[in-house]
């Protein structure tokens, strides 16, 4: 839904009443009900998950390709064994990749060395800076800097992502880059749905309530 982000921020659309949004929670519940979770999912941590996917103990893990950095650090031999695909959509041909924007760097306005700091930022945003990062942690995805190309030996997971960027309309930024509203309890609500504590429909309504609280605290108009 192309206008969802703007409508959502202006309190015109809600998760509970937008089927495309609500089914996100439903998929979580379906995964739990289908019995696909491993036995100790409640206490497994991110590093455990990465290790299990890399060594083949687990089949899938929903993640961002930043995770490749963790895999490279902990289980470097298995970097080539991990592939990547976008979460499936409701039909076989509607399948896109949710894209995460790169991290931002900020300079405080009261800084004494603003020019030096700006010079550093110029370096980070340049091709040399990009190559330096690739050399240090490896590539975790295509770069937004013009002229910075990925080396030929990127991990399999990153190579799998590239076709999505070459198809028109197959990628979209995550909602949090388009809207300031993201309820702080989302992590716990998704844990509840994925662990079977709360049904998806209830969780969607709960998240809408949570988001209302946040919008009021941020002082957004229309709420």
């Amino acid at each position, binding site marked *: 839904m192309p206008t969802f982000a703007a409508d959502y921020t202006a309190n015109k659309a809600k998760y509970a009443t937008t089927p495309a949004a609500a089914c996100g929670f439903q998929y979580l519940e379906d995964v739990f009900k289908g019995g696909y979770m491993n036995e*100790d999912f*409640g*206490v497994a941590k991110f590093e455990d998950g990465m290790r299990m996917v890399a060594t083949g103990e687990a089949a899938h893990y929903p993640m961002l390709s930043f995770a490749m950095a963790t895999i490279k650090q902990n289980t470097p031999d298995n970097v080539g064994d991990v592939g990547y695909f976008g979460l499936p959509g409701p039909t076989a041909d509607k399948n896109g990749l949710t894209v995460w924007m790169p991290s931002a760097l900020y300079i405080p306005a009261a800084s004494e060395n603003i020019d030096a700091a700006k010079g550093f930022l110029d370096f980070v945003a340049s091709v040399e800076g990009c190559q330096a990062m690739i050399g240090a942690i490896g590539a975790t995805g295509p770069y937004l800097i013009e002229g910075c190309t990925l080396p030929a030996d990127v991990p399999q997971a990153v190579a799998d992502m590239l076709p999505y960027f070459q198809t028109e309309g197959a990628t979209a930024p995550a909602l949090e880059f388009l809207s300031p509203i993201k309820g702080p309890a989302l992590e*716990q609500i998704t*844990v509840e749905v994925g662990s079977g504590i709360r049904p998806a429909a209830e969780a969607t309504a709960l998240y809408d309530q949570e988001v209302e609280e946040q919008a009021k605290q941020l*002082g957004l108009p229309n709420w």
Partner: protein
Amino acid sequence: MASRQSSPYPYWFVLPAAVIFVTLFLVPTLRNFWFSMTRWDLFEAEYIGWDNYEQFFKEPFLVQCLVNTMIYALLTSATKSVLGLLLAVLLTSGILWQGFLRSVVFFPVLVSTIGIGITFQALMHPTKGVINIALSYIGIDGPSWLSDPGLALYSVAFIDLWKGVGLATLIYIAGLAAIAPDYYEAARIDGATRVQQFWRVTVPLVRPATVTVITLSLIGGLRSFDIIWATTRGGPGFSSDVLASVIYKQYQAGFYGLATAGNVILFLLIAVIILPLTFWFNRREADL
């Protein structure tokens, strides 16, 4: 009879302490009440009246977290008092290595809470944790202590008990030492058994220590945050959330006014429970 001129000097002696009290305690508390009625992002505060309180009470998980807070506080307080007294009686009865055992019992009180949280997360792991492995040797299939929503709060209460019982024992040992041995001698002469001596002599005479332990552990339990955060972070979902962790999450989200309102509510909750309790304890003491 000459009337003594009242000297102003005693008030001058109190002044330094009063200045510190007012600046560091009284002023921030009053400003707390002010900020709880604003929308505050640490730089500017916009007055919005009772909205924060209204929003806090509409918080979907508030009822659950208040119930959790009360269960947690009452459970830890009751168990610490009972277990503390029993341990204190054991550790003043002249058993072998009494001094060493007292140190062992008190040691967890001194250890970092975060360290304890991380350690128990490892111990309570459902498949690889020592607790469940030990239970499996005697044929019991141990549950998932920290990620079972029905069990998480009680597991954390147990960890809190393990950590805090040393302090209760210490206070009780001091209280037991204050009981004159004459009472026990008189009871023995009258033919009281050890158990009767415990119930009729020890428990009534150790009352001041009991009051202290109950009050301190109840206040601590109502405010408790670090052990819960270190083990489950209020999870899974919201099942082990207490008032303090809800407030912390709101601080994390940047809702400073709302979190301050939550703190005022916590303050009032503790006052409403502890003040009547204290009056009740002290009133009976005056009757003696």
